[in-house]
């Protein structure tokens, strides 16, 4: 945060365009470098969540799968908070896949 950023916020001006350019570039390059379209990434994200949800109960609202790029290395970063029982043990699901899948689909769509 620079003085200029603060001033821009106070005056409700648009943020400096260089920041916007950098953010847009980072996003588009992460996709370019992996050759993954946003649609495919979203599909992959959904499938990963499905697989993980088979074994542990995860917070689907908090879960995020994204591409992050640093120094020409692109990493697929999945951040999936695992729900815990009040006792502290990790909550594992009963293996009843059909029910889970439909449940997850509905969560995704909302």
């Amino acid at each position, binding site marked *: 945060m620079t003085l200029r950023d603060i001033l821009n916020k106070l005056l409700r001006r648009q943020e400096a365009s260089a920041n916007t350019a950098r953010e847009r*570039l980072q996003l588009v*390059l992460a996709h*370019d470098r992996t050759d993954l379209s946003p649609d495919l990434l979203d599909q992959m994200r959904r499938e990963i969540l499905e697989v993980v949800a088979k074994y542990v109960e995860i917070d689907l609202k908090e879960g995020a799968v994204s591409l992050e790029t640093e120094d020409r290395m692109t990493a697929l970063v999945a951040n999936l908070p695992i729900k815990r029982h009040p006792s502290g043990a990790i909550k594992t699901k009963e293996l009843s896949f059909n029910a889970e899948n439909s449940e997850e689909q509905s969560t995704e769509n909302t």
Partner: protein
Amino acid sequence: MTKSTRIILICSGKGGVGKTTLTANLGIALAKRGVNTAVLDADFGLRNLDLLLGLENRIVYTAQEVLDESCRLEQALVKHKQEPNLSLLPAGNPRMLDWLTPDDMQRIVALLSEQFDYVLIDCPAGVEDGFKNAVAAAKEAIVVTNPEVSAVRDADRVIGLLNTHGVQPVQLVLNRVRPKMMASQEMLSVDDVTDILALPLLGLVLEDEQVIVSTNRGEPLTLSSNNSPAARCYSNIAGRLQGEQIPMIDPSKEGSGVRAKIRRLMQTKIF
């Protein structure tokens, strides 16, 4: 190839970012330093290097005739009058659009390596056949880009391709830098671009109206002893290529008045 000739591809992906201008100015700057330099215009569809060097009326043969053996290499090379250490070789003529192959390019560069210390290859824009031909012959590369999203994106694509072709080292030249716009954060900063592309910076070139004047005349800026901002930048790049330690200019520290001071204060990180 007995001596170790430096074969440097100058490429950008996007067109119009300053590949040909950089090639012409570097060629002259290196020649002035007494280095035997050849510039090869690999863009045979839309060649322009001859025009920027003021040699457009002196081209008789191209690399094409050399490979056909209808002329010798010496006949096709166009020597620069003021800087005889610099020679231009056009790859082909615009009427033979799909004539060159990567093999042809390697053969012609091998011929040039026998008599030159530096071979600068002016790469065509794009990542198609023209690029593939040019990259086949290159050992190292300079990627030219502007601090603009489209140019940086295309540069990134080209860097990926250079990596897969095993071209090494690849260095960056950031062209058309406007210190004022960078200071007011309305232009990607030098750090932004080098961080995103993750390449070592070979040099910056400041935006300079004299570049247009020099292309009008067909006399690259580095040819005269004038000290326009871009001319200094090009000469510095030539020096760094030869291993000299020349400090990089810092665009954010350009300017000395009260306004420049306020601009600097405004971009200091507080938290």
